[in-house]
């Protein structure tokens, strides 16, 4: 019997306290413990992080790049959501 392919995990690393975890890459491992150990070896050989998250790749739902127009265009047209849309007289000073 052929062994099924080893599951894929996405790796996120917090490089220092105060910063968010950032996606750094992926790896294969059979379970969460092994994924965490592999992430340590593959992605933090030079002190790149203080904290690691591993997430099964199958748990991620991604938006479809082909639909990015429909997805993100509505935000583009709402310029009144930006502070520069509003006029404040200079005398009022920085706001």
């Amino acid at each position, binding site marked *: 019997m052929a062994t099924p392919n080893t599951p894929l995990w996405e790796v996120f690393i917090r490089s220092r306290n105060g910063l968010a975890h950032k996606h750094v890459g992926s790896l*294969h491992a059979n379970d969460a413990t092994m994924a965490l150990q592999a992430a340590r*070896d593959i992605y933090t050989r*030079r002190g790149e992080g203080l904290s690691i998250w591993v997430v099964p790749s199958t748990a991620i739902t991604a938006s479809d790049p082909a639909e990015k127009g429909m997805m993100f265009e509505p935000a583009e047209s709402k310029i009144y959501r930006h502070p520069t849309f509003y006029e404040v007289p200079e005398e009022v000073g920085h706001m």
Partner: protein
Amino acid sequence: MYTQALNTAEADDRSLEDAARAAQFEARIDAEERIEPNDWMPAAYRKTLTRQISQHAHSEIVGMLPEGNWITRAPTLRRKAALLAKVQDECGHGLYLYAAAETLGTSREELIDAMLAGKAKYSSIFNYPTLTWADIGTIGWLVDGAAIMNQIPLCRCSYGPYARAMIRVCKEESFHQRQGYEIMLTLCRGSDEQKAMGQDALNRWWWPVLMMFGPPDATSQHSDTSTKWKIKRFSNDELRQKFVDATVPQAQYLGLTIPDPGMIQDDDGHWRYSEIDWTEFKQVLAGNGPCNRDRIAARRKAHDEGAWVREAAAAYAAKRAHRRTARAAE
């Protein structure tokens, strides 16, 4: 995340819709946009990248063998620790690259099987033997030096995951070259015998290293489309010349002689090297280099001997998952 949710590889479908998408794709490339895994891409782009990235990954993994040969015989503990770290890095580079290749839709298992079956290529340079400790210095200095020259432009490759993997790799590669040069410097400042050992290693590695940049521009079969798609930013000959120009002064500093009596410096300061023996390159690629059979045999042995570990890990994970489901059902 990309392998599970990828677009299936397109058959060679000439529908109008595809022509429109292809035009859109070319426009994105021209505008220096990065292509990401779930974006539409021509089947040939997917294929050429899968080939290139997986060959690159195989090279990193097979590349562990010639240096691994000297870990237990490194002359000092300092050298041994550095060499171990370097070989571990090569393994890491292989893994980043397999992950990047997988985003194009071929699993790591399939890629590795192709390499073990002798169907996929890896860099010709790793089919040469490491006969003395000076070879370890020369590999770091020249082989990693040539790899850096080749990889820096790849950090701007049009395919996002490959470019990101290359950025990581380049950051780590600089230590490799410096540790190699330091080994050479120590040998060249040592006894006459040690310096002769350094010269001998340079003599053996020089020409194979120049071949690492691939066939001359006039005969390279993949260059045109790769350049058009911005996978490749410089031609083989341009990179080779850059490497030679950077390396000659480093050899002079060591007091070593480049084994090319015909080499001259032209008026623009470029070092012009003699004709490369491309028959040797073709022979090595065809499987007839000094160590081709050993390298594949070593990879197969490692793969076979590791089978029980992969099976045990999969069985343990399956058992735990089964227990969780049983508990949840109670």
